[in-house]
């Protein structure tokens, strides 16, 4: 390995890597979708006729008659100028569609993450510091169960119970948070909970494991020996150190959540980024699919970068190299 890098240089390097990653990912997706039978022109014509001339004319209009690399080049040059193109299927600008879908996904992701942390931090701390073997075992079983739940099934069950039978939650109105914060939080609760379940379980386990790992470190023993109260020891010393792996996990989760959860958006009929991506695939809406993939990849990489920054804050000893 070379000389140790400074944090700044490391981050710069990571940021510079984002470009090539996005290039490869987008080129890969672009060529992959062109391998699939069917194209947007056929989707647009539907089942009304099979006139090959009409199809060819539409293909020319959409630029689909050119070789794939030419199409990719055109797309890339447009994107570099900040233009995501036009959705082949709806004829609307992709950026507008993304702007419609993104708020849903953002709110859902943030909400799910907050719920997961609200559940996981106290539970994990409890499990990691308890002296009761029974409590620990129960917590472990519970979290393993949480990890074993299929989201689509949990979602269906929650709708059946809380929306259909008890009628506590609305089914399909998802008002925006900026316009009606309370109503929005209320209606996003079930999908957010569905999405939070397995993540809460994973984070709880990570908190517990990290706490167990630092429990026997020297500085904790010293702190205890100094006569600090147990609660203070946990809060001031153990949690802060235990947080590092937890932050990594939360970062990964956030990265995934920002990409939109296809399954949860599908079950709760939320018109977010995940569903947009799924529809774009089955309807061959290439520009939309490309935009979704870009978005998801950028979110994933940036969140990971933020996690790295957070490390430095938590533990200034960390150097990258």
């Amino acid at each position, binding site marked *: 390995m070379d000389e140790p890098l400074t944090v700044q240089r490391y981050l710069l390097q990571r940021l510079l890597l984002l470009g090539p990653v996005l290039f490869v990912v987008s080129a890969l997706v672009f060529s992959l979708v062109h391998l699939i039978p069917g194209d947007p022109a056929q989707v647009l014509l539907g089942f009304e006729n099979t006139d090959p001339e009409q199809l060819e004319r539409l293909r020319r209009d959409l630029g689909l008659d050119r070789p794939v690399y030419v199409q990719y080049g055109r797309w890339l040059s447009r994107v570099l100028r900040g233009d995501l193109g036009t959705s082949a299927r709806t004829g609307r600008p992709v950026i507008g569609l993304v702007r419609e879908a993104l708020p849903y996904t953002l709110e859902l992701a943030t909400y799910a993450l907050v719920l997961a942390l609200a559940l996981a931090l106290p539970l994990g701390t409890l499990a990691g510091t308890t002296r009761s073997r029974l409590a620990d075992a129960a917590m472990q079983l519970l979290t393993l169960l949480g990890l074993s739940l299929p989201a689509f099934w949990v979602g269906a069950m929650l709708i059946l119970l809380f929306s259909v039978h008890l009628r506590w939650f609305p089914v399909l109105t998802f008002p925006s948070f900026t316009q009606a914060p309370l109503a929005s939080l209320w209606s996003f609760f079930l999908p957010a909970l569905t999405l939070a379940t397995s993540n809460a379980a994973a984070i709880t386990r990570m908190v517990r494991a990290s706490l167990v790992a630092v429990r026997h470190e020297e500085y904790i023993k010293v702190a205890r020996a100094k006569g600090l109260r147990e609660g203070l020891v946990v809060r001031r010393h153990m949690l802060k150190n235990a947080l590092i792996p937890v932050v990594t996990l939360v970062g990964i989760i956030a990265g995934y959540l920002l990409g939109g959860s296809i399954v949860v958006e599908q079950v709760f*009929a939320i018109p977010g980024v995940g569903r947009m991506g799924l529809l774009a695939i089955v309807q061959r809406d290439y520009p939309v699919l490309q935009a979704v993939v870009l978005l998801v990849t950028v979110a994933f990489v940036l969140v990971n970068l933020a996690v790295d920054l957070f490390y430095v804050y938590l533990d200034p000893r960390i150097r990258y190299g």
Partner: protein
Amino acid sequence: MRAWRVSVVAALLFALALGGAQAQVPAPQRGGTLRVGITQEILNLDPHVATAFSSIQVLDLVYESLLRLNPRTLELEPNLAQSWTVSADGLEYTFTLRRDATFHDGSAVDASDVKYTIDRILDPNTKSPQASFLAPVKEVTVVSPFVVKITLKQLTASFLSLLAATTRGIVPLNFEEKVGDPKVKTLGSGPYQLAEFSSSAVRLVRYDRYWRKDAQGTRLPYADSVVYRVIPDAATLRAALRAGELDLIIGFGVDVTATKALAGVPDLRIHSVPDLSYSLLGIQHERPPFSDVRVRQALSLAVDRKQLIDVVYSGRGAVAGPIPPTLREWQPLPASQLPNYRPDAARSRELLAQAGHPRGISIKMMPIPTVPDAVQIAQVLREQLARAGVTVEIEQVDFATFLARWRGSQFDTFVSLNGGAIDPDIHLYRHIHSTGSTNVFKFRDAGVDRLLDQARNTVDPARRRELYAQAQRAIAERVPFLFLAYADLFAVTRAPVQGFVLSSTRSMAPLAETWMSR
């Protein structure tokens, strides 16, 4: 029709129940918002280009055609055209337009708009999938501001019913310049105009100068606005109706099983009507086993359509042949009179053996992914065909793949839904005639072609009926594909919704006369 009778009886009972307290039907109330839940995304709003069923459901309220189909009786009625005459040779149609119809920008609907509309559909640059329907048109001439003449190249008996469709809706002269982007903006003459449009929701508001009035002389439409919400998941759609977040649900996924799930819920009303559309098993005739008519007959004999309807539609559907049982004026032959319709697995095996397949055949079956019944039908067919020695492999493909393979005739068999029409010519010709625009089956039969051509060019209704009686038998005999079922169509409304008519044509135009009681 059993279903008809059931709903008539139900209506009578309802009237009787009301009769004690109040002898008259309550007067329609104006105002309010009708919230309609549908399962498919609303895409293009250009009436001549849109193909998505959900788009048409919206456009039914925004655009109007020269003629319209009465949603209950399915008869042709004047609409933008208040009267018409046909020349003696049957080639010239002269329409007189009503003078009080206006587009949403206030300009009158006149003859030049009609000419522009038809020319636009036929213009290759529009790339309208509707162009093939209007292929018989030779030219359109403006006779006077409110009189327009359409000249045909050849006799086309179904021409008037071709004009009664939202997808042939009249748009103003220079539509594209006026509206900007017709894919996302509208300019029609219908009862509602577009207020907001996203792919998951559309809001329409009343057009105050709409011409049509109800029997009491009140201007239509009643409701202030109509909101369409797209909920792709049928279970969620129902839950939303139960929760009072929607007033009406309709479309794919609102089927008999779904309505059963809602049967016990108070304050909901279930509407049903026999569908004009039919589910079918498409067959590729150029692929070896199917080029032999005996193999196709064997498939037809192996299928127990009654059982299929019992399982997939809980019995709410009709076994029928090439002509929808609803269209009684065209004398649809009952299943008992159609060849190859009585299930007979033994005979089916025999035919397969004669065709050189004594040990049966293996076929692939591709259900269309956007119609939920299709995969259910495929699974039932797989079980039924197995009894006749036909092994079925179901291939579920995504929507665009299905389209590509449908278009390219790259399939053994597929299960899908074909839209129906009130004229047998429109209903049959494009799928079955060897030059039909959607004959992806590659079915070629000179006899059937001759009958369909003759019927198309015969104007006398009695003679046409005779020809279609022959055609029905010939089609059932030659098996271009299997007509499987004409299932009942369903919609569910909340109690405050009044005056809604569920039409066999699936048209949403009756929403103009639907109102909310408070």
